[in-house]
């Protein structure tokens, strides 16, 4: 088989359909089915406390999806996501509890407010390069901490405030979907929100806007030269990330029913960094996996403080035996995750998956080559 010109149109030599080619539609339908089963089946399978933890995971995944767009696509390193989450949470808690706003109206307002604030932050950010931006985002966290502590009439100060607002939309209570407990319904609501936002984020990645943002991430000047409006896309990315963050804030308040400034401090900020780094910063799936793994692990450890091996490692009260106070554990764990993942697999779990896939694909190719070779010998 010396010099046959291979052509896709020549039926004799048309390459065998690869799995990817064969199953575009099949795969999509399958994926949708799996997601649907997970979304509706999980609430039936797990107990309420597990579902509550999983719902929190959803909120963290949602906040992290904002970072996927801002940091992953557009390459803008921001630490300030909890600030916008806090704004969303306090805004919905105040208007929902004090003024009895409808949750649908709240959602719209919170998303718009988050987007506007994010665009304002973006307006400042476009004047700054990488590290100054990181510093200004730290400033936002400090400013939020001050605001949430000081504006007592709205936020309740350091003691926090109630966020037990009604989740009814025209007769349908999102906290009590037909035939479900509160935890079950909130699980479905939160993960539906994650699903929708993740689909949007995935769509953006494949469209003009996503490609423009990634071009900016790779080389800002080059992106500008090929006609991308760097300024507009950066501001847009900030607005989108903050709007998503504010939505996460609303859900967080709805889940927790009580919020304090500690929920949105620097520790939370670094928890988000750990989530996106562990999962993989530039894929929506990374945010979801990271949130499940990091927040899930933190919750799992804090509910097992008194059993082996954590009883020996962590002290849960003053004078308890243990190497580290439980309060420091979150700090330690997020810090360690950042270090280990960045050194070992900077692309996170998604990168690990991609690497494994390439490895398997290379086995596949090798097998095919061997097979072709054998066919040739026998013919």
């Amino acid at each position, binding site marked *: 088989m010396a010099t046959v010109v291979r052509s896709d149109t020549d039926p004799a030599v048309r390459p065998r359909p690869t799995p990817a080619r064969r199953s575009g539609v099949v795969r999509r339908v399958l994926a949708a089915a799996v997601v649907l089963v997970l979304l509706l089946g999980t609430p039936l399978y797990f107990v309420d406390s597990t579902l509550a933890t999983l719902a929190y995971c959803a909120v963290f995944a949602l906040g992290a999806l904002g970072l996927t767009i801002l940091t992953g696509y557009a390459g803008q390193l921001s630490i300030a996501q909890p600030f916008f989450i806090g704004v969303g949470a306090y805004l919905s808690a105040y208007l929902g509890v004090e003024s009895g706003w409808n949750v649908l109206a709240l959602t719209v307002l919170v998303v718009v407010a988050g987007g506007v604030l994010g665009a304002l932050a973006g307006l400042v950010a476009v004047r700054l390069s990488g590290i100054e931006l990181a510093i200004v985002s730290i400033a936002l966290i400090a400013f939020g901490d001050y605001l949430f502590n000081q504006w007592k009439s709205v936020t309740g100060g350091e003691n926090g405030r109630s966020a037990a607002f009604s989740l009814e939309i025209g007769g349908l209570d999102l906290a009590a979907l037909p035939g479900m407990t509160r935890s079950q319904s909130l699980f479905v609501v939160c993960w539906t929100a994650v699903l929708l936002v993740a689909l949007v984020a995935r769509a953006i990645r494949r469209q003009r806007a996503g490609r423009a943002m990634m071009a900016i991430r790779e080389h800002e*000047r080059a992106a500008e030269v090929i006609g991308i409006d760097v300024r507009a896309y950066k501001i847009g990315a900030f607005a989108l990330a903050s709007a998503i963050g504010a939505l996460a804030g609303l859900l967080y308040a709805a889940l927790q029913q009580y919020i304090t400034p500690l929920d949105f401090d620097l520790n939370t900020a670094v928890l988000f960094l750990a989530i996106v780094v562990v999962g993989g910063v530039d894929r929506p799936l990374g945010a979801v996996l990271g949130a499940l793994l990091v927040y899930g692990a933190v919750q799992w450890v804090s509910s097992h403080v008194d059993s082996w091996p954590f009883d020996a490692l962590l002290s849960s009260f003053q004078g308890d035996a243990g190497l580290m106070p439980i309060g420091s554990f979150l700090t*330690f764990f997020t810090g360690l995750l950042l270090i280990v993942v*960045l050194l070992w697999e900077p692309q996170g779990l998604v990168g690990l998956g991609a690497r494994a896939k390439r490895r398997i694909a290379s086995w596949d190719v090798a097998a095919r080559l061997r097979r072709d070779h054998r066919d040739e010998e026998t013919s």
Partner: protein
Amino acid sequence: MTDVLQTLVSGVAVGGAYAIVALGFVIVFSATGILNLAQGAFVLVGAYLTLQLGARWGLPFGVALLGSMVLCAVLAVLVERLLLRRLSPRDHGAAVLLTIGVLFVSEAVVESIWGVEAQRLGDPWGLDTVTVLDVAVAESDLWTCLICGVLIVATFLGLQRTRAGLAVRATASDQEAAIAQGIDPRMVMTMTFAAAGAVAAAAGTLLSTGSIGVSSALAATAFSALPAMVLGGTTSPGGAVVGGLLMGLVQQFTALLVPDVAPGLGARFAGVTPYLVLLLVLLIRPQGLFGRRAVARF
């Protein structure tokens, strides 16, 4: 008048500590391009090491301070050699995240070893005051000003008058040209980290003298020095010093004025003033007071 003079001294003291932390940030950043947030870890660990060497093991305070500076320099070099060097040298975002990881891990380790409650540092000055121009001034503030001044001068002499300092400046100005002259960029990176670690330890110790005491809240202090770094211009050592002093003064005077002028703002307001000043400066002059607008080439 009494208040003003007292606040002036404490402002310069706090500002001096910010200035040397910011100096550490600037030196590392201009030579390596890394925003080294682990600086906060060395501020924290440095203060606790001084506590351990001095108050616990009974060494004289000066020796304890020097010992903690040396140990933190070694720790900083270890962080650089064992962790940061494994990253791609161009991936500054990952480097920032990695140093945040170091900061958080060390915060938790410090809390595990020394506890979460604030403790007296055991410095020789305690709550003593001296009378200057009929005004009682905290002795620890005066010593802080003095030691910070010495460290700033020493850093500048090191940068301007030694071969090592020349290598750092050359790398900061043009890394490729520096390499062509036979300067080893990895050696420069190590040196800048060591210097930054040492001054951070001193800053941490000095910030916990007097009535304040050491606590894990010190790690956040490094973040208060970040605005000082940007205010002066991210690559200007002189700017870092001016920025640090300015931030210290603004913060202390705000703390003095808020209860009288605008009590509604609350005691925490002084803590956010550095960031507000930073925001103002960035809106008007993004490159900072002494920074030069970077010219990017393809």
